[in-house]
């Protein structure tokens, strides 16, 4: 089993890992000749299936295993990976390889980087190095010219320091992993959901998240003693129609707040991709039923907030509502440097609740 690659799009990769990490600590990673797939399935809460083309995050990769398509399955802790990627953000070169350290399999991330020569700290000792001729005789100025005590000699450091920062430093992060046998992952399947009633492009996620979080906090802080248990996990009600509207609502004993977005896009379906005629598709019926026909799901406020953390990827997000049944988000990860490439999709199966 071999895996060795250079990394590209590190910033996007790192954001994806951060988004996944907000839902679950450990991911199942499946690599093969074409696809890198990251899956997190928390005990409770929403699950994510992120499929990226290998070329999206890897470059000059070499993958080899006994399985078909050279598939490698790993269990990977996301926090160390996120930490390692963060330190790779300003790297000049960065490579990743599967290896063993002290008998434990690790993904070893090797980063070539340089340190910056920062402007000197504003601590007063350092500040005064800069003005060796600033020869005020006032004692307050700690005049370096009064250099009568060898212990406190200050050397002219600037000359020797300048060019140093450009030199290459090599940083190696070892992320512990577990190699999974194909049999153990065979049974893990992506959820299947019926044709959605409504599909709609979500408003900017930062906005949606700010309001959702506000609602969640309102529900947690406003309810009285007896309802506490419930209030600790407030449920938000999300609804959308096929006429460009999205509604977010929180209702508790003491309050009922709704925010509505209008003029959102309901993307057209591609008839050639459908298995049923477009006119029979549930969304067609919802569209014909007019703007008062809403598809509604209830989500857990805190889990929803973790889901919306995917907004940091800055991708287009399509929400698919199956009324009173399921909510799926498709996050299209932008690929700035390769417009022709196939989009990568991160799929969120948002866990939802009935009344």
């Amino acid at each position, binding site marked *: 089993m071999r895996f060795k690659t250079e990394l590209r799009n590190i910033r996007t990769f790192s954001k994806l890992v951060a988004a996944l990490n907000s839902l679950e600590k450990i991911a199942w990673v499946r690599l093969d000749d074409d696809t890198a797939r990251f899956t997190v399935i928390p005990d409770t809460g929403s699950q994510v299936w992120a499929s990226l083309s290998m070329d999206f995050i890897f470059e000059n990769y070499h993958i080899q295993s006994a399985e078909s398509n050279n598939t490698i399955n790993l269990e990977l802790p996301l926090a160390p990976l996120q930490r390692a990627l963060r330190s790779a953000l300003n790297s000049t070169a960065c490579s990743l390889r599967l290896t063993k350290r002290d008998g434990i399999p690790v993904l070893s991330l090797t980063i070539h980087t340089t340190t910056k020569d920062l402007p000197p700290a504003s601590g007063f000792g350092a500040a005064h190095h800069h003005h060796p001729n600033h020869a005020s005789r006032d004692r307050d100025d700690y005049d370096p010219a009064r250099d009568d005590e060898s212990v406190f000699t200050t050397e002219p450091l600037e000359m020797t*320091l300048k060019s140093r920062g450009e030199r290459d430093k090599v940083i190696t992060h*070892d992320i512990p992993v577990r190699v999974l046998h194909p049999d153990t992952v065979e049974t893990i399947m992506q959820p299947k959901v019926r044709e959605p009633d409504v599909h709609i492009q979500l408003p900017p996620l930062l906005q949606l998240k700010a309001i959702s979080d506000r609602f969640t906090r309102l529900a947690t802080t406003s309810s009285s003693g007896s309802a506490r248990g419930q209030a600790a996990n407030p449920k938000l009600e999300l609804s959308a129609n096929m006429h460009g509207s999205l509604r977010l609502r929180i209702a508790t004993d003491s309050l009922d707040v709704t925010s509505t977005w209008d003029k959102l896009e309901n993307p057209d379906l591609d008839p050639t991709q459908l298995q049923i005629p477009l006119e029979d598709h549930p969304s067609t019926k919802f569209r014909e039923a007019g703007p008062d026909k809403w598809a509604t799901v209830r989500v857990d406020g805190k889990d929803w907030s973790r889901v919306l953390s995917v907004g940091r990827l800055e991708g287009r997000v399509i929400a698919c509502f199956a009324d009173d049944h399921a909510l799926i988000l498709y996050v299209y990860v932008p690929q700035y440097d390769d417009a022709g490439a196939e989009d990568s999709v991160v799929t969120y199966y948002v866990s939802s609740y009935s009344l």
Partner: protein
Amino acid sequence: MAILSFTLSEEGVAVLHDALACIVKFSDDVCLEASKDKLTLTALNLSKSAYVKITLSANRFFSRYSFDGTGQFRDKFFCQLYIRSLLSIFRTRAASGDQARDRDKETTIERCDVSVDDGPGVKSRLIAKIICRNGITATHALPFETKAPVHAKFDSNEAANRWTISARTLRQLMDHFGPGIELLDINTDGENVVNFTCFTEKAVNPSTDAVLKKPLHTSIAVEMDEFDDIEVPEKLHIIVSVKDFRNILHHAQLTSGELAASYSVPGRPMKLSYRGDGILCEYILMTVGEKDAAGQRGTKRTRGANQTKPAAPRPELEAASVTSSNQANFAVPSGSRAAAGNATAQQKTPARPRQSQFQIRPPPLPPPSTLRSESLFVAQDEDQQWEPVNADEDADGEEIARLEWDNNLNPSPKRIISHAAQATPRSEDIDKMLDSGLEPTQRLSEVRRFGLFSP
């Protein structure tokens, strides 16, 4: 007439504050030792594995400095103070970076007059008078304990290995280390490089999930050329506490350009030093001996019930021979501080033979960790806004606070156990639904086949 009196400028107060903030990461108390030409601040940590000594030059650091030793304090005066009370006096601003901006504000400190008096019939007090630009003068009187400081011994002749490097460069490199690590191994395993390797000694069973919870293992190779005055043999590993090292670097990069290290072999002390204008900072850290490192693996989990981070058992620094033999008797403290003081005093009895390099014994609990080491990590930048909602500690605290809602009354968040039917199909249900045969991936093409959107 005070034994010691001095005046600090505004900048001097800031530098003193930085120095105390650094020392407090090692110890709760600081020893002041004053003589004609310098004021020295020293501290030894609880486990006696790290010693700090910050020397302030009498005529360069202070705007005014006078030492008038009499009687028992003819040459030197010393006392021990609780650092946090000093810190609250010399607090000027959150970070020393805002100097230029703060200078205009009226509340800033113009200068600080400090006087210390002690002796028979005189109250032992350190009096600090803070004169602010807006005309307010605040006077603080602190009690202290007259106690001879313990100095760690470091033999610079023995420490043949040394290097000097830009403190800022090293500090930036330390930012690459992740959380949860305890030890820093400075070694010369590679070709012409010095490696800084972080690790923990927690052994884990490779077959369990615990493997995945190990902290990130990070190693940074720095070319020898990056160092000045480097003299290190090949294949030498020297191991120190990463927390101590970080704390030192944090102060070093505020104070100075260059950090110098010198050491000999594992199990012998390492000295780190740097200087600013009128200030010299020296640290003596005990390094983990090879034997200790090996022995630790077998015994380390014995204190497992202990919630605080288990410190690797570390050898202690050697106390230097007492500065002057009878001074330990001057202590005039009361209560538990006295007891603690005596315990320390015993440590420095010169009875310990030279060849016993250190005592191996269970170290006391490490001092409570401070938040400051966190600040050494790379800033989270704008990512904070994407963090999941936390209803308990409120980002919109101000609004909530205005409404006087007590967030603290919230019960700890419980996981939802949903007895209601869960709408999203879980993996168990999937088998039934597999008929239409969607592969467990979702390239866009596949999603399309499944009947979603036009491009």
